[in-house]
């Protein structure tokens, strides 16, 4: 596997050549990918919100936002600005500390999880050895924040919403972790980069979706439940719970929840494409294509094109999944809380366990196909 473009080492090399000590160069480089990732996540949310509104409108034969910018693309920006300038209200007799910390605890882990999202061989903030595990452990911090804000709102709807969110997140985390574990077992690594590289060999045929046909369905269902998207949006079921744990929130704190839910959706879609759809790999391996044309994949311009194709592929896969989530939102009715827990504990958990066992057995039996 060739290394491709390595922005980090070339940037540091550039700074060192300018006469800076290498330690200082590293420190100067460090915040750049983090800031870039924050911007990418936020812009991704704006796009997702716009898509959600436009696609929802199309499904219901409406126009959707039209007047803010061409095709209403500035509508999410306008929404965000509105929320930014709204009065920040803390309800009387709410617990002001928990009420304020709650949204932050929900949002921070989601943004932190972007550390491990790769857009290319070296286009990642850090290639952690425990990448997938980091994501799963960070996502289990979120229900604490939800419970906090639900409990501190001094509102029965918020409390029930918070409890439901906690119950839902905890029960769906297990099948999610088990389906990821099957992937991890096949690629012998928790690192997202290694997981993608293990799928990269045979183009579209090498993607994990063919080797984990059950796993990817479990992952998708659990991811929808984790992000509280519509068949599983019980915590904020507006017909019964007003808005769940968000009921008492306005202004920037509400915006944090809103942002968090969409960042989480995109994160889940990104990781789905990394785990099951081969991340940045093109349906036909780029190296094969380069070989057909007769160009060496190590030439600079080929590498730039490869990186561009990689980023585009990740985004295309991600937004295709976001589209599917939005379409599912208008297709499936909401499940009841008992159905939700039944599905989680009595269906997904045993099936994902069986999936893990079968994957282990197949790995022993066919080490070639299942990453021996």
């Amino acid at each position, binding site marked *: 596997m060739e290394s491709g473009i390595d922005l980090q080492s070339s940037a540091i090399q550039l700074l060192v050549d300018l006469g800076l000590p290498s330690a200082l160069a590293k420190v100067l480089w460090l915040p750049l990918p983090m800031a870039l990732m924050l911007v990418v996540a936020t812009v991704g949310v704006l796009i997702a919100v716009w898509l959600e509104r436009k696609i929802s*409108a199309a499904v219901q*034969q409406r126009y959707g936002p039209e007047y803010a910018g061409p095709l209403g693309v500035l509508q999410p920006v306008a929404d965000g600005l509105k929320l930014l300038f709204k009065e920040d209200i803390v309800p009387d007799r709410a617990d002001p500390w928990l009420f304020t910390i709650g949204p932050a605890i929900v949002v921070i882990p989601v943004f932190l999880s972007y550390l491990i999202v790769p857009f290319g061989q070296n286009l990642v903030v850090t290639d952690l050895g425990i990448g997938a595990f980091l994501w799963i452990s960070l996502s289990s911090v979120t229900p604490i924040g939800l419970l906090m804000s639900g409990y501190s709102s001094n509102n029965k709807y918020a409390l029930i919403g918070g409890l439901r969110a906690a119950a839902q997140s905890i029960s769906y985390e297990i099948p999610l972790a088990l389906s990821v574990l099957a992937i991890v077992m096949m690629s012998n690594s928790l690192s997202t980069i290694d997981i993608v590289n293990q799928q990269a060999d045979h183009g579209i045929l090498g993607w994990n979706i063919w080797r984990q046909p059950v796993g990817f369905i479990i992952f998708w269902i659990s991811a929808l439940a984790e992000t509280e998207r519509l068949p599983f949006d019980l915590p904020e079921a507006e017909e019964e719970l007003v808005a769940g744990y968000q009921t008492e929130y306005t202004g920037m704190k509400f915006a944090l929840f809103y942002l968090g839910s969409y960042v989480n959706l995109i994160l889940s879609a990104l990781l789905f494409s990394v785990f099951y759809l081969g991340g940045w790999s093109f349906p036909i391996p780029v190296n094969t294509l380069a070989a057909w044309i007769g160009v060496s994949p190590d030439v600079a311009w080929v590498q730039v094109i490869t990186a561009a194709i990689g980023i585009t592929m990740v985004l295309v896969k991600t937004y295709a999944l976001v589209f599917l989530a939005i379409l599912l939102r208008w297709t499936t009715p909401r499940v009841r809380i008992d159905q939700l827990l039944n599905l989680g504990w009595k269906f997904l958990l045993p099936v994902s366990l069986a999936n893990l066992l079968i994957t282990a057995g197949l790995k022993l039996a066919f080490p070639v196909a299942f990453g021996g």
Partner: protein
Amino acid sequence: MLKFLKQVGDYAKESFQAAKYIGQGLSVTFDHMRRRPVTVQYPYEKIIPSERYRGRIHFEFDKCIACEVCVRVCPINLPVVDWEFNKAQKKKQLNHYSIDFGVCIFCGNCVEYCPTNCLSMTEEYELSAYDRHELNYDNVALGRLPEKVTLDPMVTPLREFAYLPKGVMEPHDLPKGAQRAGKRPEDILEDLKQDKAAAAPVSDDKA
């Protein structure tokens, strides 16, 4: 053991069926995305109300004979008829007449029963006000002619679905003079007359 296997099989079958149904649902929602929006962009576009639309009530003061039939047929006795007996003319003389549209349910009973046809229903439905007492229309307000959607230069009037030409689904940009599907009421009346004229000599013979 066999029973257990059967249970597992049934469960798997049900799961596949559920997946199939979700797939069917998805195909429906996906198909809806390529359909044209049905939105009427309200303040700029308005639907033309049908002839039998029951909007704000119009009242003609001079026709009213203060018989109070409208009050009696009204489900909540809403119209207020203020009259006094004119001894010289030996007639009821109407002083004021009012209907509170904040309470009216637009059932049209008063219009139906008015003996002198001084009440009628208009196509006006934009009755918003800052104060609910503003909706209590007196005889002057009731006597105002209704505003027509088609005459407002700011508004693009749109026809309702039933008033579109045959096969047309889209009310925007109809060609001028495009007629709705089927016969117009006056044509139907004309046809009826002709039918009657054609049938009349036959019935005479039999008699």
